[in-house]
């Protein structure tokens, strides 16, 4: 029995000439974990939203063909009538919340379906346990961290017990351990209860090992296949797949475990020392900086130097204080104790340092990408457009771009200040590998031109390829600091895939491939 069937589906958004998906045929059997992947802006979100009828019932546009989920036809069933068979978790969990307390939010869907109160009680408790939310049950959904919100949104969607769960980038705001936990919980629902999970995700290194089926959305079509055959493509796959493809491993590995079997047969040479230019002058420093509010210490006596030519990665679990530290460095808030200095004085926001926030939407207000960059005081527009690979998109309205592209535009608009220190908060959410590559390249250029980049991220592969130094935060304190190979190398949670396959000292597939040739 098929859980989701797309039958010759063609869909065009209102006032668009070209369909975003055309003649798509797809069948997902019941009880699989399906990974939806593809480049930024290819129509992954559209595909997901077809499953419960949000497209076309909410989007408008022209729809042809038929979508069946759990035997219901979305042409005649509205999303609300699919609610008991398809659960949907949107990309931005923050604005999807209806009620206020975590517990009530989780119960909301069940209330709508008229589930008996005593079953609801039990079900809410199960969900709180399954997603580690028990301690947050009385909190406001608006006052918890992004990662916590993401888990609440998933719990709330799953609570009514729909047999099909559709998730749009369910781990984009989660730290590596949190992501692992959520994906494992979803997999358990698939294995133990025969549920069907359909998840779009860019961070393939996290999810590849869980998927039974991969759906590639690209160029207006979608096809389902074994994960191996789709993730084997160099431009899409997780680092292990890139390694395997370059080293001629067959069958191609998609998980670390599979890659290790190949690697054991052929141990590589000792890792080459990574050549990094020695950092220049100190551009900014935090001296015993602390920040507390409402009786809670968010940042606790942090000492940190940022030097010219550096790309510093701030890592740590959800709620460790990364965003707060960035705000202190950016001069957005002043430390409650200690100080932050740039050139001997408090940093001037927008001059000495610029900060790109987690939500790019907060920055964008002009009607084209070019105008958006021009709006930043003192912008060298053409150079910045080029640097971020946005020249082709410069005439488009930022709102018509995909989430990943918008993030690039926001980062570019902020970088256009020309401030020597650029701070980025979670810069790779929703970015496909190609867009990520562009971002990394522009970060490198900025560093080599005598600037510095400090970025907070959960993306270990980004850190492996872009960071010159890693600062690990826990409960507002710096708990480890050093080069990526030192800090990530012996971490059970934060080690990148290449390190897991070949051992400490190895960070990226490129490094391995270069040393083999």
């Amino acid at each position, binding site marked *: *029995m098929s859980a989701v069937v797309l039958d010759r589906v063609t869909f065009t958004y209102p006032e668009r000439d070209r369909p975003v998906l055309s003649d798509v045929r797809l069948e997902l059997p019941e009880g699989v974990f399906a990974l939806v992947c593809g480049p930024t802006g290819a129509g992954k979100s559209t595909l997901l939203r077809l499953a419960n009828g949000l497209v076309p019932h909410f989007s408008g546009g022209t729809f*042809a063909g038929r979508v069946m989920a759990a035997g219901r036809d979305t*042409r005649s069933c*509205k999303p609300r009538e699919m609610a008991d068979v398809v659960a949907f978790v949107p990309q931005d969990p923050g604005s999807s919340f209806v009620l206020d307390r975590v517990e009530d939010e989780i119960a909301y869907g069940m209330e709508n*379906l008229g589930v008996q109160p005593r079953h609801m009680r039990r079900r809410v408790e199960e969900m709180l346990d399954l997603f580690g939310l028990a301690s947050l049950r009385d909190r406001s959904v608006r006052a918890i961290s992004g990662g916590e919100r993401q888990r609440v949104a998933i719990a709330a969607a799953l609570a009514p017990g729909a047999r099909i769960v559709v998730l749009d980038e369910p781990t984009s705001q989660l730290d590596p351990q949190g992501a692992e936990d959520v994906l494992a919980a979803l997999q358990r629902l698939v294995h133990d*209860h025969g549920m069907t999970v359909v998840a779009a995700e860019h961070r393939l290194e996290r999810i590849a090992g869980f998927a039974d089926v991969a759906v590639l959305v690209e160029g207006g079509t979608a096809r389902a296949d074994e994960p191996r055959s789709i993730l084997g493509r160099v431009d899409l796959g997780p680092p292990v797949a890139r390694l395997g493809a370059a080293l001629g491993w067959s069958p191609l590995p998609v998980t670390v475990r599979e890659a290790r079997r190949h690697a054991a047969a052929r141990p590589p040479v000792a890792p080459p020392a990574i050549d990094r230019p020695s950092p220049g002058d100190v551009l900014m420093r935090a001296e015993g900086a602390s920040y507390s509010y409402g009786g809670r210490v968010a940042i606790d006596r942090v000492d940190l130097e940022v030097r010219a030519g550096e790309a510093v990665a701030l890592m740590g679990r959800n709620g460790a204080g990364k965003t707060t530290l960035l705000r202190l460095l950016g001069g957005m808030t002043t430390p409650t104790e200690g100080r932050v200095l740039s050139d001997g004085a408090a940093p001037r926001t927008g001059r000495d340092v610029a900060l790109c926030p987690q939500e790019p939407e907060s920055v964008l207000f002009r009607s084209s990408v070019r105008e958006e960059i021009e709006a930043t005081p003192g912008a060298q527009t053409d150079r910045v457009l080029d640097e971020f690979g946005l020249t082709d998109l410069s005439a488009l309205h930022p709102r018509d771009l995909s989430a990943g592209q918008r993030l690039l535009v926001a980062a570019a608009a902020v970088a256009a200040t020309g401030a020597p220190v650029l701070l980025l908060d979670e810069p790779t959410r929703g970015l496909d590998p190609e867009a990520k590559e562009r971002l990394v390249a522009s970060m490198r250029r900025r560093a080599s031109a005598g600037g510095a980049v400090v970025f907070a991220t959960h993306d270990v592969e980004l850190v492996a390829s872009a960071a010159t130094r890693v600062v690990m935060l826990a409960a507002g304190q710096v708990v480890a600091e050093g080069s990526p190979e030192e800090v990530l190398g012996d971490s059970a949670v934060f080690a990148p895939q290449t390190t897991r396959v070949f051992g400490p000292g190895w960070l990226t597939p490129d490094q391995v491939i270069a040393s083999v040739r």
Partner: protein
Amino acid sequence: MKLLRLHLAVVAVAAAAVVPVAAAPDAACASEGPRAVLVVDTGADVIRLCVSLGRPSVSGIDLIKLAGQQHGLDYSFGYGGNAVCRLAGVGPDGGDCFAEHPYFWGYWRGSSSGGWTWSSVGPASTRVTDGSVEGWSWGTGDDGSSHPAPPPTAFSDVCAPAPEPVPEPRPEKERRSKAPEPQKTTTPVAVAEAEDVSTGEGDEPKKRRKERPRRPHRGSVEATPTATPLPEPTLAPAAGAASRPGGPPAAGLAAVIATAALGAAGVLLLRRRAREGL
């Protein structure tokens, strides 16, 4: 164009949140199976349940079992599972269903007008189909003239045109065997290797598309609800108020002192809460 979407969104919010009429689900929603109403009158309480049958017809006994699964109705059968002993916690527990005679569960069958007819046969041999209404009442009296009938109930009183929700997730196997399987009739042959010729079935999506334009309902943004203005204060007739020239009266002073005291208390409370981080 993006703005259009946004306007639609506002209308959608307004429509979804404000108009209860618009909230009634589409009756055409495909996989909705046959349903029946079960009324249980314990004498103290009347429970009315809308039960999905999952098949075109079931027996009166099956209907109670389904109500147990879907709504958590408590029940127990006796005489080899053919008679009803206990419902909703009332009645003997299994075995002899007449253990509490003269009280027992009377079996009634609903008519389309909402009235009741005493059933002359047991619940194991009746047929319950889409739209049926079945009633059980606890009481004395051995036939339809003396046993109390449940309160009049029509099918539409209980089963709204809304589709019946799945009340709670069930273990996989149970669900598979009981749930309706509408796919058999509606799933398209479709998918990857289908070398489908243009059959009637194949043409259908296109036809449907013409018949039913897929644009969501458009309305004007003015339809968005606005906050009700606060009531305009009205001037009361200033009749017979005793006025007194000179300084404020003693009561007025008390009012000012009370206000100041409350104001200060508020400031202190705010400070204390800020300090304690409460």
